[in-house]
């Protein structure tokens, strides 16, 4: 389906034929200035052809000479080295992102305690670490935390009684 503008150009240039031409001319009956516009368009074409004559290329042989020199210079240039592929291509970046995400999930599930049982286990684990650093296997140190009382108790076991003269009073 041609627009009015398209059909108008085709009409001016004599490109409409048959039914298309008849239909368009019926459409133009409502535009009394259509013929004047067609005439003006032909006048414009005549004006351009008369006054915008085809210029000729001056020094045409030099034009070829210069062009051939440019081509020769262009051919003489070494072919550009193939670009080094950038390591971080899009698929690699996507893979790395996915890996980081998985790693952070794993660290979250492993390192962050979530249930009370896990928290207690963690406390026990901390206490055992304290035990592990004792030289004497008979000595143990255990830490307890009472959440309700908000108190931490350090329980030392297996130590000798402190002599009377060293007791802090």
């Amino acid at each position: 389906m041609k627009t009015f503008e398209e059909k108008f150009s085709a009409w001016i240039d004599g490109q409409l034929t048959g039914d298309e031409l008849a239909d368009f001319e019926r459409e133009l009956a409502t535009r009394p200035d259509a013929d004047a516009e067609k005439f003006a368009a032909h006048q414009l074409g005549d004006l351009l052809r008369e006054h915008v004559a085809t210029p000729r290329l001056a020094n045409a042989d030099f034009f070829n000479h210069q062009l051939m020199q440019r081509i020769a210079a262009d051919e003489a240039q070494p072919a550009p080295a193939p670009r080094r592929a950038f390591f971080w291509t899009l698929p690699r970046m996507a893979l790395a992102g996915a890996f980081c995400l998985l790693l952070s999930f794993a660290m979250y599930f492993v390192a962050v305690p979530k249930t009370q049982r896990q928290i207690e286990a963690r406390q026990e684990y901390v206490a055992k670490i304290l035990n592990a650093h004792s030289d004497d296997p008979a000595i143990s140190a255990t830490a307890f935390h009472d959440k309700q009382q908000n108190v931490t108790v350090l329980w030392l076991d297996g130590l000798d009684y402190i002599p009377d003269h060293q007791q802090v009073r």
Partner: protein
Amino acid sequence: MPLESEPVTTAVEDAELVARCQRGDTQAFNELVTKYRNKIYAMIYNMVRNEQDAWDLAQDGFLKAWKSIQRFRGDSAFYTWLYRIVMNVTIDWVRKKRAEGEAEFDETLGLKGVEPGAVTAPKGELLPHKKLEAIEIRARIDEAIAKLTPEHRAVILMREMDGMEYQEIADAIGCSIGTVMSRLFYARKKMQSLLKDVYENL
């Protein structure tokens, strides 16, 4: 210069020259340049209205064609293909100049660039006052052409100056026939309004 009315021998000659170009024969390309340089230069000159710019753009267009010749498959005539490359180079240049605000008509350039006998080339010897009138009309036409967008400029020059068919223009610019007709409509309207007083005084 309708493209499709080129003699068959021309198309055959072009195909042979193109085949040699594709084997790296610069002499064959030189022959193609010689054959089409005037048409290409004229088309560009009418678009940019400056000899030096037209020369440079024609050089760039031919150089680009040489670099791309391996991709020419012969689906269209060589000249249509070349025309399209050169037209793209020229339209890009005009668009860039307009963006830089340099596309306004330079009256001194327009008048200086016009040789009454050579460039406007009216038939036979003109009387001095007629020569002056021709120069003035050419300057007004240049001024009007400069006010068109590069796309409208290309279409109206190809149609009115080169007598190209709609399909040939569409092939050369890389758009549909409908777009060509539509651009032609608006380009003519604008040129008519800009040159109205020129018609009236003819």
